[in-house]
């Protein structure tokens, strides 16, 4: 059937039906069109196909570039610590001022009203321009210098304080960690530095210097509960709970502040009155009469040549201070400008003197006419006696008389009192002062203040509500000021009172205070954000934030990564060098040699690295023999090479008995040649895979030891990611998470990248191992 048919058909095919294929042709293998693929090229092709590994290599490349380049690009140096920007949050410039909380240098704070106002106050204070102009609240809120970037929540909270229920206004806001510093006090500036700042302000248009806060004004400034660092942010009137207040002590509400701003409490440095000009050295006002015009113009910058203490006034003579009372009148007039005044009151008890152009004469000895010509002050029809306690006198008909004498002499009778008042109109002040003491007005008579009780004083005259800090009985000229037609003493009055009494007088805020020997050092109040720019020529922006010491985390991370790379590469090289030689000898010679060498590696394998690192540190680093880095390298290398050695040994066992080795040996190859030319190359794949895993291992261990503080790289010239982690933990991960999180992220990324890269390399070099993860 089927078979039969087949048989029938093909059973006998004639030979001539066959034609040999390729008859008379020379057959050769076709030459390869492509080049042969080498071991490494093959591996590279496989590696390229592994997406994860390629991405990982790119990440590693970026990290390496970061470690190399970042220190050159960064605005900051490794050892550059900004004390006021400790813990500054990460910020990028394009997110600045957005209030989004994303990389804009802010963090969230929940605080009571007082603190909220204190921060907003920085913005209001930064707008000071020399006048008392009221600032626009919108402008304040959007100000760059406003640390409050966004108010998230405003609520009321009931607290129990001292057993009482108190409702507290609270705010939750995003606060900029760069601007929250606000104003600070800078001490010890030289005059030159001060001028440099002024020049810089002009050049850039940024304001650095702000008036000093009047910390002596007990009504406006509460020193007790404030950290001195932040005192300069309390430039406004506030009470002991730090509430903003007005001058009557009423707490300002937010609405009032929005409308009228805060009440400034700046120190007035320069005061001009009709009887002279005064400079303030921060505590006392000094007369500057006798200073040149230029000196007066820059009055606030001078320390007067005039001096006064409990012994009396001093004149500046021949480069030294001499007690004025020891000089003759002539000497007084010639030696010091100050004594060129035509009127003088000595600090003694003998009263006032006038200078008639020739000599000083005692007022009491002169007639009224003489007085008038000698000094305009005495041109008044009214005077106070210099040594009586019996009230006031008018100068009438060439004679001083009291009210009753005046009543009789004028013949006015009962209506004399109106006329009396008219004559003495400018003396409506409640208070007046004469050389023999203060007087206060009681209905229509002046009473010597010293005869009154304190309570009476207080009820009669408001000035007696003040605390006077000098002996009022012996007022000295030059410490008075003119108010309401009467001279009052400046010493003892607060700036506020001076301003209140003399609104028309030219006042200037005190921009600095002199300290130190000869007043050579200046203390100023600066807006730190701008002062930082003046000092460093750059805006403070820390890409990854600043750590607890104010170091830039970004640049230190780059140095940390650099240390990790350098360390791991050196360790890998050392491991390879020792491991290859050791493993080759072991594998090639085998037998007894191998056994002994194997025991050595096994013992080494039992040594915990932590112990070796510690011993190296204690023995060599603490005694100053080697650096910490060297110790770490040696410790890692001392234990690390065994893995390479055993890998090489294994490859030798696999290949040393193969035929090609035998063939080479037969041909007379030396041991050295056999080892390194014929057998060792087989181990290269394993070794490459190995070092790709050793690098993350070394980085991980280094981080581990420096985190534990066994090796401490916390310096200005070197740091490690582990040290940064430890520092971050000390600073407090709950409050300043960025100090830990950035190093942790970089380290994590690095470790993941290296492991992926290592997996890729292993798959590429040993395709048979693909998929098995270890």
């Amino acid at each position, binding site marked *: 059937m089927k078979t039969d048919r087949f048989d029938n058909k093909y059973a006998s095919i004639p030979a001539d039906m066959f034609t040999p294929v390729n008859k008379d042709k020379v057959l050769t293998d076709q030459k390869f069109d492509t080049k042969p693929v080498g071991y490494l090229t093959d591996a590279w092709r496989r590696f390229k196909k592994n997406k994860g590994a390629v991405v990982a290599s790119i990440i590693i490349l970026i990290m390496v570039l970061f470690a190399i380049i970042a220190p050159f690009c960064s605005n900051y140096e490794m050892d550059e610590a900004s004390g006021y920007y400790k813990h500054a949050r990460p910020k990028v410039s394009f997110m600045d001022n957005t209030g989004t909380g994303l990389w804009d240098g802010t963090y969230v704070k929940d605080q009571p009203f007082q603190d909220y106002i204190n921060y907003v106050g920085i913005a209001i204070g930064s707008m000071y321009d020399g006048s008392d102009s009221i600032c626009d609240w919108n402008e304040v809120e959007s100000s760059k210098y406003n640390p409050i970037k966004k108010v998230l929540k405003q609520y009321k909270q009931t607290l129990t304080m001292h057993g009482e229920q108190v409702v507290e206004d609270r705010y939750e806001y995003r606060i900029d960690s760069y601007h929250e510093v606000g104003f600070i006090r800078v001490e010890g500036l030289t005059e030159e530095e001060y001028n440099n700042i002024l020049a810089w302000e002009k050049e850039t248009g940024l304001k650095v210097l702000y008036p000093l806060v009047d910390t002596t004004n007990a009504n406006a400034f509460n020193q007790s509960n404030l950290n001195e660092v932040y005192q300069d942010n309390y430039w406004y009137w506030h009470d002991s709970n730090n509430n903003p207040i007005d001058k009557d002590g009423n707490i300002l509400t937010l609405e009032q502040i929005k409308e009228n701003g805060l009440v400034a409490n700046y120190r007035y440095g320069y005061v001009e009155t009709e009887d002279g000009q005064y400079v303030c050295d921060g505590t006392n006002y000094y007369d500057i009469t006798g200073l040149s015009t230029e000196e007066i113009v820059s009055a606030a910058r001078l320390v007067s040549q005039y001096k006064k203490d409990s012994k009396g006034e001093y004149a500046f003579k021949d480069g030294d201070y001499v007690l004025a009372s020891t000089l003759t009148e002539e000497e007084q007039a010639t030696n010091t400008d100050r004594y060129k005044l035509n009127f003088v009151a000595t600090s003694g008890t003998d009263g006032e003197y006038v200078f008639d152009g020739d000599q000083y004469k005692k007022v009491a000895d002169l007639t009224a006419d003489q007085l008038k010509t000698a000094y305009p002050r005495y041109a008044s029809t009214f005077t106070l006696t210099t040594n009586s306690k019996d009230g006031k006198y008018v100068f009438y008909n060439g004679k001083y008389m009291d009210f009753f004498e005046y009543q009789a002499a004028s013949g006015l009778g009962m209506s004399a009192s109106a006329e009396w008042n008219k004559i003495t109109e400018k003396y409506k002040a409640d208070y007046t002062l004469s050389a023999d003491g203060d007087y206060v007005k009681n209905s229509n008579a002046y009473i010597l203040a010293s005869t009154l009780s304190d309570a009476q004083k207080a009820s009669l005259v408001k000035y007696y509500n003040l605390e006077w800090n000098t002996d009022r009985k012996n007022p000295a000229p030059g410490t008075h000021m003119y108010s309401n037609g009467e001279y009052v003493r400046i010493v003892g009055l607060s700036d506020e009172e001076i301003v209140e009494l003399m609104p028309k007088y030219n006042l200037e805020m005190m921009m600095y205070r002199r300290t130190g020997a000869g007043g050579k050092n200046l203390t100023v109040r600066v807006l730190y954000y701008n002062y930082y720019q003046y000092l460093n020529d750059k805006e403070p922006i820390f890409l990854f934030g600043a750590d607890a010491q104010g170091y830039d985390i970004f640049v230190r991370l780059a140095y940390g990564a650099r240390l990790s790379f350098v360390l791991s590469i050196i360790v890998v090289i050392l491991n390879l060098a020792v491991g290859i030689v050791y493993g080759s000898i072991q594998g090639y010679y085998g037998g007894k040699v191998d056994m002994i060498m194997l*025991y050595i590696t*096994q*013992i080494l394998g*039992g*040594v*915990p690295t*932590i*112990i070796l690192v*510690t*011993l190296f*540190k*204690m*023995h060599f680093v603490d005694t100053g023999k080697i650096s910490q880095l060297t110790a770490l390298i040696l410790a890692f290398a001392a234990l690390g090479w065994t893995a390479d050695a055993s890998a090489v040994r294994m490859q030798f066992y696999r290949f040393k008995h193969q035929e090609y080795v035998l063939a080479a040996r037969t041909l007379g190859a030396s041991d050295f040649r056999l080892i390194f030319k014929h057998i060792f190359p087989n181990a290269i794949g394993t070794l490459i895979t190995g070092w790709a895993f050793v690098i*993350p291992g070394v980085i*991980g261990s280094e*981080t*581990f030891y420096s*985190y*534990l*503080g*066994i090796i401490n790289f916390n310096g200005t010239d070197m740091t490690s990611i582990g040290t940064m*982690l430890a520092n*971050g*933990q000390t600073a407090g*991960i*709950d409050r300043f*998470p960025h100090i*830990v*999180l950035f190093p*942790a992220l970089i*380290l*994590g990324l690095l*470790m*993941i990248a*290296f*492991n*992926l890269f290592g997996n890729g390399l292993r798959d590429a070099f040993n395709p048979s191992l693909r*998929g*098995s*993860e*270890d």
Partner: protein
Amino acid sequence: MSTLKYILKRFGLMIVSFLIIMVICFILIRMLPFKSEAQGQAALVEAARRDALGYNKPIMEQLWIYAKNVITKWDWGVSWKIDYMADVTDVVGDRLIPSVLINLYEMLIAIPIGIFFGIIAALKKNKWQDQVISTGVMILISVPSFVYAFLIQYVLGFKLGWFPPVASSLADAGGSYFSWTMTKSLALPVLSLALGTIAGYTRNVRAELTEALTSDYMLLARTKGLTKGQAIVRHALKNAMVPILPGIIGGFIAVLLGSVAIERVFAVPGVGNLYVKAISLRDYDVFIYVTAFYTFLGLAAGILIDLSYGFLDPRVRVGGGK
């Protein structure tokens, strides 16, 4: 017979290694200068005591005294800095419980979870479940545990406030390591430790089970009529566990080792923290004792793992020669 010989050989090598390491360590430590912080009368007493204990004799003689004390009296010296004049065995003993506790809890949590994820990943190989698990494993294996411990501490401890961010002291926990306060405060260190271990077990189980699932005996099991589930549980899983078990056994020895970095992150008053403290305070006797402790446990765990391979897997013959 050869197995017994191998075991003896391993033990011998272990003891030799241990002795060599300890002798080197002892000599290096005793060579370091000792700085006393005691003053006045106390300094004199201390100096006299040190003299009496032979600290001023030549190092080899010191070694002899030390070895003699350890062997005859189990006297490992006293702490000079941490717990002044307390026996180091007591000093370490006090801190052993928290270390063991966190590691024990960690093992108990990590083993079942790790095996569970490993099985899922192997069964769903190359599906999304496997990819998610493998990615997680890769991250957790690569990143050192103390690095993500920070993250755990920050998120769970501080931000969400679910657990105490640091371990309680014994006094706060009511004087017991087993009180609820203490257990709760140990949650975060346990979790931080467990994540790495879970990842390790997941990876190993996945690899072993994948291999088992593609074996010929699985095909046989299916052809003889077992369902897929039966085949996996009775055959694949059983075989896949063989290489996993030695690791688990070794792990239980390692519970004594504690975890230096994690203990430091969470301020656990354990051996790891003690060790770092001994280094920073230069409390040399404590350092030597903890070193001995660590070295011994490390070597013992290694041997136990190797030997258990032989007992669990008849295919592995230990010490079988060439």
